[in-house]
C-alpha cells in the first residue's frame, strides 16, 4: 500500500474517533433519579444521535444509544451503536451547590463507509460537574479505543442562569462548551448555547465556532 494512502486512512480513522468522542461527550454523564428513564439527543449537521438510559439504583444507570455521523468534508460516514453504563462515583451536597464525579462506560459496534467489517469499540471515561441554582461547570475526559482508532477527548462547559425561578417555571441559561479532539485538528470547537430547563426537560440551542447549528435535549420519564 502506498504510504500516502496509509496516511490518508490513518487520518480518516482519527476523524472517525474524534467524531465519536465528540458525539458521546454531549450527554454521557447525566442519569436520572432512581427508577427513572432518561432520553437524550444531540443533533447537528455532522452527527445525529439518540440515547436512552434507565437508573436501576440512585447511582447506576444502563442504557443504549445510536449515532450517525459524517466527517467535515461529508465524504466519511459512520454509524455507532453501543450499550452504556453510568455510575455516580461521588457526590458532595453543599448548602447551595452540588458536585458530582461520574464514571462512564460504553461498548458497541462501529461501521463505516471505508471499511467492510464492523469494529468493536470501548469508551471508558470520567466526568465531573459543579452547579448551583445560578452557575454550572463541568469537564469530561473519555477514551475511545478500537482497532485502528485510538483517541482521547476532553470537553469543558460553563455557564450561568439569567435569573432564579420556581421549580415549576422554565429557567434559561447561557452555556459555553469547548471541546478538543486530539489528532484531528488543532482547533478547539467552541459552542455558545441557550439552555432551557423545566421540570422534565432540558433543551439547548447553539451555533458552534465551526458555524454548525446544534440542538441537544434530555427528557425524564
Amino acid at each position, binding site marked *: 500500500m502506498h504510504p500516502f494512502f496509509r496516511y490518508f486512512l490513518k487520518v480518516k480513522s482519527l476523524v472517525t474517533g474524534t467524531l465519536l468522542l465528540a458525539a458521546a461527550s454531549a450527554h454521557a454523564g*447525566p442519569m*436520572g*433519579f*432512581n*427508577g*427513572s428513564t432518561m432520553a437524550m439527543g444531540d443533533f447537528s449537521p455532522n452527527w445525529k444521535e439518540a440515547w436512552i438510559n434507565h437508573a436501576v439504583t*440512585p*447511582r447506576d444507570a444502563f442504557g443504549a444509544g445510536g449515532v450517525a455521523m459524517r466527517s467535515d468534508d461529508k465524504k466519511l460516514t459512520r454509524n455507532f451503536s453501543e450499550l452504556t453504563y453510568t455510575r*455516580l462515583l461521588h*457526590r*458532595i*451536597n*453543599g*448548602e*447551595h*451547590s*452540588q458536585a458530582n464525579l461520574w464514571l462512564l462506560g460504553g461498548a458497541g459496534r462501529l461501521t463505516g463507509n471505508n471499511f467492510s467489517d464492523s469494529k468493536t469499540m470501548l469508551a471508558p471515561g470520567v466526568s465531573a460537574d459543579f*452547579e*448551583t*441554582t445560578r452557575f454550572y461547570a463541568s469537564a469530561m475526559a473519555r477514551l475511545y479505543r478500537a482497532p485502528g482508532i485510538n483517541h482521547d477527548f476532553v470537553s469543558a462547559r460553563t455557564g450561568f442562569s439569567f435569573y*432564579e425561578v*420556581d*421549580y415549576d417555571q422554565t*429557567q434559561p441559561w447561557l452555556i459555553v462548551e469547548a471541546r478538543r479532539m486530539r489528532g484531528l485538528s488543532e482547533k478547539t470547537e467552541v459552542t455558545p448555547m441557550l439552555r432551557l*430547563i*423545566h*421540570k*422534565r426537560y*432540558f433543551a439547548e440551542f447553539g451555533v458552534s465556532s465551526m458555524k454548525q447549528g446544534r440542538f441537544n435535549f434530555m427528557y*425524564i420519564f
Partner: protein
Amino acid sequence: MKNLITLKSIAACTGIVWATGTFSTAIAAESIKATVNGMVCAFCAQGIEKTLLRMPETKAVFVDLKKKIVAVEAKDGKTLDGKKITAEIKDAGYDVVKLETVAQSVEDIKTATKAKK
C-alpha cells in the same frame, strides 16, 4: 309548623356536619417540611418529588429550590414518618439538614413561600 321545625333541624344538622368537616380538615392539614442540601436544579427537584409521591401516605409535595425546602403533606387519616422521608431524600442523593412538622397544608406552604419572594 311541624314541617318548619323539621327543616330547621335538618339545616342545623347540616351546618354542624359542615362545620365539623371544615374543622377536621384544618386539623388534618399537617405537613413535614425538610431543608435539603444539594438540591440545585429542576431535575433534582423532579427526582425528589417523584420519589416522595411514590409513598402511599403522601398526598402532595412542594419543592422550593431557592429556599431548599421540600414539603410533604399526608393523605387524610395517614401519618408521615420523618425518618422515612429523610431516608427517601438521602437515597435520592441529597442531604436533609432540618426536619420539622408544621400545621399547614402543602398548598398553604406554597402560598406562604411565594408571598415572601
